[in-house]
């Protein structure tokens, strides 16, 4: 496998964390334009912990996930009672605030004769924990996809459980869910926190893959793409977001036919797809049909 294919596959894996994070909120009926902020929180905090404090990556990743979910919880607390578009706007504002805070964030230390750490708009270089341990691209690819696989299995178990049904119930009709005795707000806060942790995990992995991050990595483009991926792939199953990422990064990127026109193709594809399948390729009906067929 050459570097290019490895790189694309790694990127598909990394993006999938973010898309899954958006998906989790979408099935609970909330559209967030701000998951990239938690991705950024994960990237920055994970990077600082390994590059400046020399902690091992797994520890850094756990702390970053906790931090990501805490941030998501705090943003969710005042905003989750808002409906639809209002929530989307509030998360957008929160995420742009986070990006600007990254721009203002300077925290550099001398490590091995070099200044390491976030340096405002100049970015954060030298997140080299993985690199210095001689992990080759293929090895890192395996790590990313291994973790993604775990996340997917958790999702699939969750979707078969009562929790999964409850989240979809809340997403479809929150008032009716309340009338069934479901504590909608509490569930949504839990979902926001979990989605924040998932995005933060993706961010940690991204930072260590790239060895370099900067505030602009986490602007609104990233968040809206992850939303679009979840919506293209479909809201019926956790494979949906993955499919969405693959359609864009794999198919459009891979087939060089669209070179230079990829966004024109992608944009048109999404818009037309949404007309015919407003809940994506693998929506609830398709998934239900497939399940009835094959189980």
């Amino acid at each position, binding site marked *: 496998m050459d570097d290019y294919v490895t790189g694309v596959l790694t990127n598909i894996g990394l993006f999938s964390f973010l898309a899954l994070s958006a998906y989790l909120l979408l099935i609970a009926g909330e559209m967030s334009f701000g998951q990239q902020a938690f991705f950024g929180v994960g990237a920055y905090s994970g990077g600082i912990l390994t590059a400046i404090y020399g902690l091992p990556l797994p520890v850094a990743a756990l702390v970053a996930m906790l931090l990501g979910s805490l941030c998501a919880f705090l943003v969710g607390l005042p905003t989750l009672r808002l409906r639809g578009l209002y929530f989307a*706007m509030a998360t957008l*504002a*929160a995420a742009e*605030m986070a990006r600007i*805070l990254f721009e203002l964030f300077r925290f550099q230390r001398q490590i091995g004769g070099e200044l390491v750490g976030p340096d405002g708009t100049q970015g954060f270089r030298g997140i080299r924990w993985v690199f210095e341990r001689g992990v080759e691209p293929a090895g890192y690819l395996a790590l990313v996809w291994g973790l993604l696989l775990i996340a997917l299995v958790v999702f699939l178990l969750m979707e078969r459980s009562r929790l999964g049904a409850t989240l979809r119930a809340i997403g479809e009709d929150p008032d009716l869910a309340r009338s069934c005795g479901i504590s909608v707000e509490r569930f949504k806060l839990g979902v926001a926190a979990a989605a924040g942790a998932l995005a933060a995990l993706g961010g940690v992995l991204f930072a260590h893959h790239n060895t370099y991050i900067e505030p602009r990595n986490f602007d609104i483009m990233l968040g809206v793409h992850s939303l679009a991926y979840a*919506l293209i792939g479909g809201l019926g199953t956790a494979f949906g977001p993955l499919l969405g990422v693959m359609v864009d990064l794999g198919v459009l990127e891979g087939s060089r036919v669209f070179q*230079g026109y990829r*966004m024109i193709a992608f944009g048109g594809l999404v*818009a037309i797809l*949404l007309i015919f399948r407003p809940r994506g390729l693998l929506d609830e009906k398709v998934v239900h049909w497939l399940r009835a067929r094959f189980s």
Partner: protein
Amino acid sequence: MLVDLIQNTLDGLTAGAAYALLAIGFTLIFGVLRRINLSYGPAIMLGCYAATWFHVQFQVGLLVLAALTLAATVLAGAYVERLCFAPHRDRSAIAAMVASFAIWMQLEELATLVLPNHLYAFPALYEGGPLSLGPFTLRAEALVMFAVTVLACLALQRLLYRSRFGLSVRAVIDQPVAARLVGINLPWVFVRVFAVASALGAVAGYLIVASAGQVTPMLGMWSTLKGMLAMMLGGLGSLPGAIVGGLALGLIEAHSQWFFGPQVRDLTAYFLLFALLALRPSGLWTTPRHG
């Protein structure tokens, strides 16, 4: 100190005038369709790009450029309406919003294909230096911007209060259910609202680009964000609110920039938006509705 404060206020009001125009366009679409059009800014950007392309090829004059910007923006707006909003009329607001985002990607790439540089010069409205009024300075473009904004608002006011179309628009904004019942031809109203909003956006876009003297593809995202911010500050769906929101945004930005610098300026604007949504989701201007 006082001089600076007044100077900042002047600058803020000028920027606010452009924001107000953007916000009015946004609000018209939101008020009537209950949809957020993320492609609003990118359509304006494409309009400006089309005009720039003409200018690069044929060196046309200011008025021709303005007309071109207007025509191209309305065309791009119509494309957005057909692809993102007409099909989702009775369905998910979220699907429409995401579709409009997808089209944003398209328009942005289209612009960079036509004119691949990051920046292009755009003929400035006025070549001379700033006018000085005692201790204050005022750019001539700012005066034009202000004057045109006021004119556009008056024209819109006339359109909304003196025509049948305006009556149906107001009916749909105030009483969406009732408007359906009395048999207003909604699709047709939507199409024309889109055209009016695009035209207003084009005016704003042209003024912004011509007073900055340059275009970049970032104009798309920039206009969408500023328009949306101003709309939210003023209260979703209220036209006078959009004007107040635009001016308020301009003032807030000018003052916070002067005190704290450009990053904190943006931070303040977003913080305000967030706090407003969390505390008072119906906006500053509107009285909260019951039910």
